[in-house]
């Protein structure tokens, strides 16, 4: 896992079937996700490698894979909670966006031609980055807590929502800044100067889905 982290420096580390990895391997992601570096300690020396990557994971909703779809899930309650607990709280806390993707229906496979092409999405992202005056860097993800607070320029209703969410969702300090970074990015993509209530609520929804 350590080798993968540093190999993907400045890239994307994609882990398919995230919940099938052993807990020990997943916990090894903590340091690189937070410090953007990974330390390998052996008997004679400890070496630190750079590991600044974007983590993307894919997972089934449950061991049988049918939780939430029309066919119905056949897992035991105990299996479900064991599956969900595979990813520890600290790791979940470091994941910003959780989006569930329902099973595609057959008629949509043939009909679906009107989705946005990746090139158009790329244009939107590049436009957003230009607006914020950023180069090819890591943008909002690289901002420190103090910097993101200033950059967000959250409106008063957004600040109220943030305070409420801290209380209701028991956000950690890390979680708080992470929500703010996501909300800043949503506002950037929408071309908005200040982080409003809507962007913040959207960022919170992506985080809540994981808590459920």
């Amino acid at each position: 896992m350590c080798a993968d982290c540093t190999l993907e420096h400045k890239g994307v580390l994609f882990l398919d079937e995230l919940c099938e990895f052993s807990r020990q391997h997943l916990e090894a992601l903590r340091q690189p996700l937070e410090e953007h570096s990974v330390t390998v300690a052996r008997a004679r020396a400890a070496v630190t490698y750079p590991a600044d990557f974007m983590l993307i994971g894919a997972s089934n909703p449950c061991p049988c894979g049918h939780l939430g779809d029309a066919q119905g899930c056949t897992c035991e309650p105990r299996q479900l909670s064991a599956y969900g607990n595979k990813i520890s709280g600290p790791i979940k806390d470091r994941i910003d966006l959780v989006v569930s993707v329902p099973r595609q229906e057959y008629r949509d496979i043939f009909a679906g031609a009107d989705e946005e092409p990746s090139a158009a999405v790329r244009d939107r992202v590049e436009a957003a980055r230009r607006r914020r005056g950023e180069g090819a860097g890591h943008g909002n993800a690289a901002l420190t807590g103090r910097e993101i607070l200033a950059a967000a320029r959250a409106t008063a209703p957004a600040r109220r929502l943030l305070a409420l969410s801290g209380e209701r969702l028991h956000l950690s300090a890390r979680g708080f800044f992470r929500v703010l970074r996501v909300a800043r990015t949503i506002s950037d993509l929408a071309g908005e100067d200040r982080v409003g209530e809507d962007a913040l609520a959207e960022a919170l929804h992506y985080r809540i889905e994981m808590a459920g």
Partner: protein
Amino acid sequence: MHLDSPPRGFWQLGTVGATTPCVAIVGSRRATFAGFEIATSIARELGLAGIQVVSGMALGIDAAAHTGALDAGGSTIAVLGCGIDVCYPPRHAGLRARIVGSGSLISEEPAGTPPFRYNFPKRNRIIAALAQAVVVVEATERSGALSTARWAADLGREVLAVPGSIRARQSSGTNLLIRDGVRPFLGIADLLEAVPELRSAVPQGAFDTLPGGPGGGLERFSPPLREILARMGTQPVHPDQVGFALGLSPSLVASRLGALELAGAVMSLPGGLVARTV
């Protein structure tokens, strides 16, 4: 207790003993969200009316029944299949403490008995014997809840079953009960008709002032949020379905759902579905 094989004795732990009348709410451990909600709301109505709720403290419907009664400030009895000092399932430690605080735990097993599989069907007869009526909320054909229903029928207690879709696996057992002549439960009125003692045992009008079901009290939300709630109905849905039906972008739906989740009006379920809780 009218049982052919009455327990030799009871261990009881709690503050409020079994009262008459009381109603048992039982069902599947692997309940659907709708079943969980139904069990909670029946128990809540009974709790508000001062009627004790009996169940088995298992996962799923049982837990919903105890929780609903406690949330309404009512009393509830949990009949255990293990020793009185054993917490099973372990994750119900919090619920167990609340039950002891305003009801009681009952077991016929000696203290320290682990949750042996064969003790659970046996405790079902006690649940049936304690209650004047048994409401089965969700059960598959092989569910333990059906054994409780059979015990209850043998004892001459009223049995009611919440009907479900004929395609829903979680309702196959309750639908079978109904086919075999058990009274369907469509609302608290069915329970009162089946067991008239319930109405006479509680203060006049206790069942007339119950809070309304879905649809009421939504004025506190802004029109865009109300639009989302109105689209959601009683079953869990995927956010994409809501967005598609209303012609809203996924990000707009996410933003409104985020606001509703914070307001406690919507809950995220494992598997990515969302459900209304108001």
